[in-house]
């Protein structure tokens, strides 16, 4: 679409952080001498989203992946760093602003039940951006456009009159997609779009998204906790842990030979459809409290390879042999054991 653009990346993120102040009221802190409590949801992350490709972010709940999506859409203001959409700095732009740029990036949310206003009819839900961004002038135009979009995502034109509660979860997610497509966006941010859906419906939605990407040449930022889904969707993959990207690179390389113990842990825990896999050693520990993250490498309490360096020094992302980057002292020191699991049939 935007072939005139020089840059191969549609979006670039540089050292973006988001800190939330979750302190108690001032007086309490003063009296009980408690420090300010800062939750660092996103910690100086940088990445580029290649045009027309899918950039996937994977991690467990609380790792900051959803915050990233909201930062990009302007729903949160970054505490530091820059976000550029093509050549425009949108770091501190409010959501929906500037309209000319924002209409080129849209978002699909996780919860198909919460992301559609239950009191609105489908026509109004999907028509909202058409009016806000001035895409359609008349009511008739809106109706026509809505019906077209509904068909495009596999629903009926007649569904425009219905309310969200008359649809199943999968159908609602189609509505969300239709709404996002109204502005013909070039970048679609998908925040766990299928995690609330049943498997058989998930495959429909994932297929639909792939089809739409092929049809419109959109770029995706695809956020998920499910490595198997990411395997299917991603071109480039970033693994997040406690607000940081611990590994990023082309999907194939990461899946073939993950260069971070956490990535490996995630791979281990993907349930395999081969019977009896549970006998393998389960991983210990849980994700620590992000308010007081561990020192050094935040993964060290759960890492079988952790040593003194890991406990004190925070590792940097470094390019590994295969071209992916990972932030791991063990990998730096070559202490990372070789990786064998690759479940390709």
């Amino acid at each position: 679409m935007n072939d005139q653009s020089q840059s191969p990346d549609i979006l670039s993120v540089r050292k973006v952080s988001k800190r939330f102040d979750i302190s108690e009221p001032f007086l309490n802190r003063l009296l009980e001498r408690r420090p300010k409590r800062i939750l660092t949801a996103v910690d100086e992350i940088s990445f580029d989203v290649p045009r027309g490709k899918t950039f996937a972010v994977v991690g467990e709940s609380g790792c900051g992946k959803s915050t990233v999506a909201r930062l990009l859409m302007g729903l949160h203001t970054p505490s530091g760093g820059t976000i550029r959409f093509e050549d425009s700095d949108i770091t501190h732009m409010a959501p929906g602003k500037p309209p000319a740029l924002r209409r080129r990036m849209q978002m699909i949310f996780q919860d198909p039940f919460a992301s559609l206003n239950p009191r609105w009819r489908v026509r109004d839900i999907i028509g909202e951006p058409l009016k806000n961004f001035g895409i359609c002038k008349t009511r008739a135009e809106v109706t026509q456009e809505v019906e077209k979009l509904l068909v495009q995502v596999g629903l009926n034109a007649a569904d425009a009159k219905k309310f969200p509660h008359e649809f199943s979860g999968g159908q609602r997610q189609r509505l969300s997609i239709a709404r996002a497509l109204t502005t013909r966006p070039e970048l679609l941010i998908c925040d766990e779009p299928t995690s609330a859906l049943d498997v058989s419906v998930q495959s429909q939605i994932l297929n639909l998204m792939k089809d739409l990407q092929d049809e419109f040449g959109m770029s995706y930022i695809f956020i998920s906790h499910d490595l198997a889904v990411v395997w299917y969707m991603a071109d480039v993959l970033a693994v997040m842990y406690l607000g940081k990207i611990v590994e990023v690179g082309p999907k194939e390389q990461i899946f073939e030979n993950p260069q971070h113990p956490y990535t490996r842990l995630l791979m281990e825990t993907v349930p395999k459809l081969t019977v009896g896999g549970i006998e393998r050693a389960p991983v210990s520990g849980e994700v620590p409290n992000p308010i007081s993250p561990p020192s050094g490498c935040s993964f060290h309490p759960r890492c079988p390879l952790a040593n003194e360096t890991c406990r004190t020094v925070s590792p940097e992302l470094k390019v590994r042999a295969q071209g992916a980057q990972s932030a791991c002292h063990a990998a730096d020191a070559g202490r990372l054991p070789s990786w064998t699991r690759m479940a390709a049939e």
Partner: protein
Amino acid sequence: MFAFLLRRIVQAALVMLVVASIAFLMFRFLGDPISNLLPEDATVEERADLREKMGLNDPFVVQYGRFIANAAQGDFGQSYRNNRPVSDLLAERFPATAELVLVAASLALALGIPLGIYTALNPRGWISQGLQVVSLLGISVPTFVTGILLILLFSVTLGWLPSFGRGGVVDLGGWTTGFLTLSGLKALILPSIMLALFQMTLIMRLVRAEMLEVLRADYIKFARARGMPNRMLHFKYALKNTLIPVMTIFGLQLGGLIAFAIITETVFQWPGMGFLFIQAVNFSDVPVMAAYLVLVSFLFVVINTIVDLLYHVVDPRLRVEKSTARGV
């Protein structure tokens, strides 16, 4: 905890300041005390003289400052009507109201909670349905009507219980109590029933609603799945969770009791603060009105602070440091 307490105190001070200001506004706007103080045939000069003496001619700000400064020391001046320091009057009346409210509150709790639990546990029984309707009736009939009906029935028709006053009281060093004489106890019955009725129905309905809510909670379902006996399920597991929110509301209701005591005391000639207040309203006895308002809001703030503290004690989720729990 300490911080919490201090925050409450700051908040309370703020509330009290606002209340005091409102009380002062009354001085400005309510009836002129002069008419009550002087005989009907006093001269214009006498009136002007008195205005001057009472400082009613001073600038607004001066009067306000003086009022707040005095109020902070518990000095609300002299009652226009009773010719005595307001603080003495209120101190004298406080026991009557306190005992009335105490008995009414106990009555409301002692009946409201069991009835609420009963209706929650047997939501479809006809007794429960009946109680539901009766409780609605309880909050639909104005309290003054109930009071008058009580007098009509128990005093005039049956002649069982006194229709006015506190009966015999015993002075325990500044605190007069009606608990120690038979006539004092008898005199308490009707007024406290009238006062308690409304609150009782409120509490009953509240307990019922909360209990039904709690009984639907996952942890009750899980406890039921573990085969815990109903008795334990209802009266241990569910009840404590039910009563925590009820406690807060009851704190607010206690203030409501103090306020509604105005009506009860009016009907029963109960020599308490509320009666003093409504008489003060009729006589434009502003110092008494102001002091009453400030005192009631003070009591209210104290009660609610205590309730909040209790809340911290009873509810472990608030008691323990949050940091051990997993954050966001």
